[in-house]
């Protein structure tokens, strides 16, 4: 089995190396990487069958000892159980779809680059190399059995994300965005690393199994970080790790990088910034559930952060005009939902939503990409409209994606989102009331912005220019097939996975939920139909419908002049939303400006004045002056020389002989 696991991880890596480092042709590049990822995907499905369907015993073992230091072994190892199997299938499947889609999306990429750019010549190969490298990194992350390898994967996905956001590095905005993503993630990773260090300090080990089995023993330890402040060790560790998740999974206030990451090509927005990488934080917290269950404080913290993200990032989706940014804010909001689920101890619901979201959100992104291809890389929705008749496949698949997103009954999002709302409803920890309000209100907002986008793009007046309209047509098959392939799970996966994932203990012994916290006891399970009927009588369903109706009236037929009026009346609110609540300005002024000011201060005062002029040149000048003085002792007069010798003699005699 180990060979299979190794193959799953290494096949994309080999593809990435060949496509990236050997100057292969475009065709070879996409063939080799698609083959690698397809192989991983097939084997992942096989592992999934063994682990989930056949119920094989989880595998936990090392394949390579990287470093042994004293009694500590740093190993490359795999932990394969139902959780990693689910993640592997999701990651490799979405990745495969994105790989195929990319063949169409990047087909004429060289036209995007400046004419004389050398980077344009192999941008296609480079792109494939990066996304394959990403798949490798993400797989090492989810398959890891220890914190060190987790951290490696964590950083490696961050690296690829950085490379891909700035893929078109001739654009200043892209460089700005990838730098921003990098810096913001550093903040999160710093917390993450501190968390891992704390685990190493107190557990003396980085292996998951050892840490989890000792967690109970350390549950009541308190530590002093600030003097006279006793903090629970487990809360400190959990919050530190979660700060890492906040960076990677874009939770308030570390969310600012994700909207800007849309500067990257659309396929990676789908793969990295919607389906997989950004959910790494959700996965990590679920994996650490034995630790998180021991800290009520950390869970409350997570709950509140998630709720804030879910609600307030949704609002921002309402005022965006860039098609990808709408989807990006929707992603932020949905990540907030997953985080809320984590905070409510419903780790399985979070993974459930992670999975359904991966399918429908990458579908939406790829659909948006398909629109963008058809519109010749125009992303402003105000210049679209009425695309339904030109892009039928994209239209229908996007409709499916949107319905899944808003939680329309029987679509996958319906089950996962309702499960989260149910879980929060039953949660009894601090912040649960606010979180419940946020996720319920979020449903209306989600429906509103999703269908605002949908109607603006596919219905209404055709607002594009004549030239674009004449060339509108459905993109190539490599683009549309992945849409269809993703549309299928977007519809059905919720109904299939609901029972096993939430109630029937698929994650038994993998995700640990204290009995008192479990929001989905088996006794409450009434089957898919029971869940559906229950859902149809609840607020979220009506709110979603209301959202769609509102969107239809405001942006399709009826009162399309109203949005402009609202905007004029509530201009302060609009400004607030357009400015994204001022997070960017705040960061720019306080953190970036502050660091720059500090840097300039340290440079001018600390480095130039103190070190350069004071210590380095100062001491050198002093020595030089002393040298100029002492050299005059050498007068050239013989009697001075002899006198010096006599003084030396007298000194030695006086000191050593007399002292005795």
């Amino acid at each position: 089995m180990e060979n299979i696991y190794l193959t799953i991880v290494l096949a994309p890596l080999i593809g990435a190396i060949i496509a990236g480092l050997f100057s292969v042709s475009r065709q070879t590049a996409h063939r080799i990487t698609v083959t690698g990822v397809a192989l991983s995907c097939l084997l992942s499905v096989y592992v999934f069958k063994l682990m989930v369907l056949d119920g094989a015993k989880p595998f936990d073992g090392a394949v390579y000892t990287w470093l042994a230091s004293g009694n500590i072994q740093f190993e490359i190892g795999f932990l394969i159980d139902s959780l990693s199997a689910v993640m592997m299938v999701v990651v490799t499947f979405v990745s495969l779809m994105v790989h195929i889609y990319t063949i169409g999306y990047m087909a004429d990429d060289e036209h995007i680059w400046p004419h004389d750019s050398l980077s344009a010549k192999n941008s296609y190969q480079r792109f494939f190399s990066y996304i394959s490298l990403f798949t490798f990194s993400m797989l090492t992350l989810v398959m890891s059995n220890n914190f060190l390898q987790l951290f490696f994967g964590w950083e490696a996905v961050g690296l690829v994300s950085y490379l891909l956001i700035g893929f078109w590095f001739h654009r200043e905005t892209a460089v700005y965005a990838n730098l921003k993503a990098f810096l913001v993630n550093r903040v999160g990773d710093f917390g993450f690393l501190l968390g891992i260090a704390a685990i190493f300090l107190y557990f003396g080990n980085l292996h998951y199994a050892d840490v989890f089995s000792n967690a109970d023993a350390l549950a009541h330890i308190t530590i002093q970080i600030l003097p006279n402040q006793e903090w629970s060790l487990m809360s400190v560790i959990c919050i530190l790790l979660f700060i890492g998740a906040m960076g990677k999974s874009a939770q308030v206030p570390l969310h600012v990088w994700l909207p800007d990451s849309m500067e990257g090509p659309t396929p990676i927005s789908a793969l990295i910034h919607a389906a997989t990488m950004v959910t790494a934080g959700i996965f990590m917290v679920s994996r650490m559930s034995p630790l998180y269950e021991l800290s009520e404080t950390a869970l409350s913290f997570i709950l509140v952060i998630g709720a804030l993200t879910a609600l307030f990032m949704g609002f921002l989706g309402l005022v965006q005009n860039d098609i990808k940014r709408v989807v990006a804010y929707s992603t932020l909001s949905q990540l907030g939902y997953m985080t809320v689920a984590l905070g409510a101890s419903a780790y399985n619901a979070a993974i459930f939503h992670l999975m359904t979201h991966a399918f429908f959100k990458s579908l939406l992104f790829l659909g948006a990409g398909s629109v963008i291809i058809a519109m010749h890389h125009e992303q402003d929705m105000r210049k679209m409209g009425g695309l339904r008749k030109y892009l039928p496949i994209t239209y229908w698949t996007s409709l499916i994606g949107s319905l899944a997103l808003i939680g329309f009954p029987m679509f996958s999002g319906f089950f996962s989102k309702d499960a989260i709302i149910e879980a929060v409803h039953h949660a009894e920890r601090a912040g649960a009331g606010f979180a419940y309000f946020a996720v319920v209100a979020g449903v209306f907002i989600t429906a509103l912005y999703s269908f605002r986008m949908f109607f603006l793009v596919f219905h209404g007046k055709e607002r594009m220019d004549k030239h674009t309209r004449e060339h509108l047509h459905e993109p190539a098959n490599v683009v549309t097939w992945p849409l269809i392939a993703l549309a299928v799970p977007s519809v059905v996966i919720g109904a299939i996975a609901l029972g096993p994932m939430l109630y029937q203990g698929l994650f038994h012994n993998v995700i640990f939920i204290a009995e008192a916290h479990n929001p989905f006891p088996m006794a409450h399970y009434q089957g898919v139909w029971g869940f559906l009927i229950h859902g149809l009588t609840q607020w979220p369903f009506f709110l979603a419908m209301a959202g769609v109706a509102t969107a239809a009236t405001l942006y399709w037929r009826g009162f399309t002049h109203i949005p402009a009026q609202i905007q004029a009346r509530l201009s302060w609110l609009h400004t607030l939303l357009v400015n994204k609540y001022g997070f960017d300005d705040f960061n720019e002024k306080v953190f970036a400006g502050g660091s720059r000011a500090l840097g300039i201060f340290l440079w001018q005062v600390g480095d130039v004045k103190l070190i350069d002029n004071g210590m380095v040149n100062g001491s050198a000048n002093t020595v030089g002056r002393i040298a100029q003085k002492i050299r005059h002792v050498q007068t050239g007069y013989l009697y001075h020389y002899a006198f010096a010798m006599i003084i030396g003699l007298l000194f030695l005699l006086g000191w050593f002989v007399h002292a005795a």
Partner: protein
Amino acid sequence: MNLANLHLLLPEIFVLSMACVILLVDAYWRKCLHGIAYQLSQATLVGALLFTAFISVKEPVIALSGTFVWDSMAKVLKLFIYVITFTVFLYSRQYLIDRNLFKGEFFVLGLFAMAGMMVMVSAHHFLTLYLGLELLSLSLYAMVAMHRDSAQASEAAMKYFVLGALASGMLLYGMSIIYGLTGSLDLTTIAGVIAENKIEPMLLKFGLVFILIGLAFKLGAVPFHMWLPDVYQGAPTAVTLFISSAPKLAAFAMLMRLLVEGLGSLNVDWQGMLLFLSVLSMALGNIVAIAQTNVKRMLAYSTISHVGFLLLGMLTAKEAGYAAAMFYTMVYTLMSLGAFGLLLLLSHAGFEAENLNDFKGLNRRQPWYALIMMIVVLSMAGVPPMLGFWAKWSVLSQVVAGGFMWLAVLAVLFSVIGAFYYLRIIKLMYFDAPTDNAPVLKPSADIHWALTLNGMVILVLGVLPESLMTVCRVALS
């Protein structure tokens, strides 16, 4: 007098006889046999090398009624002295020819000086030691004054002679005090008598101070260094090269013979005195060198600072420390050879390369010699992987092992200050434009290759320093 083991003196006898022969040959056949003195001198050195190399004695032998000792330290140092002197003669040839000094006197005086060194190295008796020292010193005084039309040289010789006489007087005074106290001139006997602890220690220290001053003068340790910058600068560069190299080895031997073999029981006292001399030398040498514009003078101060380092090894009063000091001395002579050799090479008829500005842009004019100079200078500054780094390292590690951590830190600090003037030479050679249109010199092949070898030895032994270190360790065990 016991004449057994006379064969141990063969090298000394050979060198002295040859010096006399060369004197005669040069007097009568100078005109018809041009350069005969040079060739014969070099042949003498090779012969002495062979004689010395073939004398193999396992245990130290004391010959001639206790006046002469043959041990492995003597053998190693003598061999090294031959090689150094040979190279000095080789480097000097063209310089002497250009200045019309290429006469028998230089080589004969050189050989006499070397004979003096050999006697010092093998001395086991106050008298032999003093004899060797005077033979060396007198020859050197004459050599400094050889360029008699040069006022500078005459002044330098004068200062050297007067101060040298003063130092010799003090040394002799110290020796006579010790003789008065112990009743012997033989080092072994002296050591034995002192070890009995029957002599008033204050009197012994009194003698020790005078002896130490004689040694310090010979080495050029502060405050007995005053002659050194003036002599280095004033003497013809060829003579400076000679003074700065081989005699330091003899001086080291003298330190070993007098302080360790003769007055070893007084080590607590001379440790303190050496400490005083060493710190002053490192401080003054490194600091004042910065203010110099004349390279010869700068190298003189650099020598003073190296002497400070050498004394560091001695003051640990342990065998490993002596070995480190010996290693340091040998490395120092190699570096000094390289530096002054290049100065000789860059000088030509009517031009003395002795100012820092003469090095400007050397890399553009003569990149190969600039490279060798860089190796030498980096080695002097103690930059790895040059040999000079290991010299400093071995001394410092002994100092640290001896418990003088603060002293090691101080020594490193002074080395950092010293790095400035060494690196300045590199900066001048590589980053500054040449000031004048100095001709590109084409030295004869043997000098070229000898210099190249000199540089390579510093580099290669720097990468593989263990062999030379082992030689020093074995020589002193």
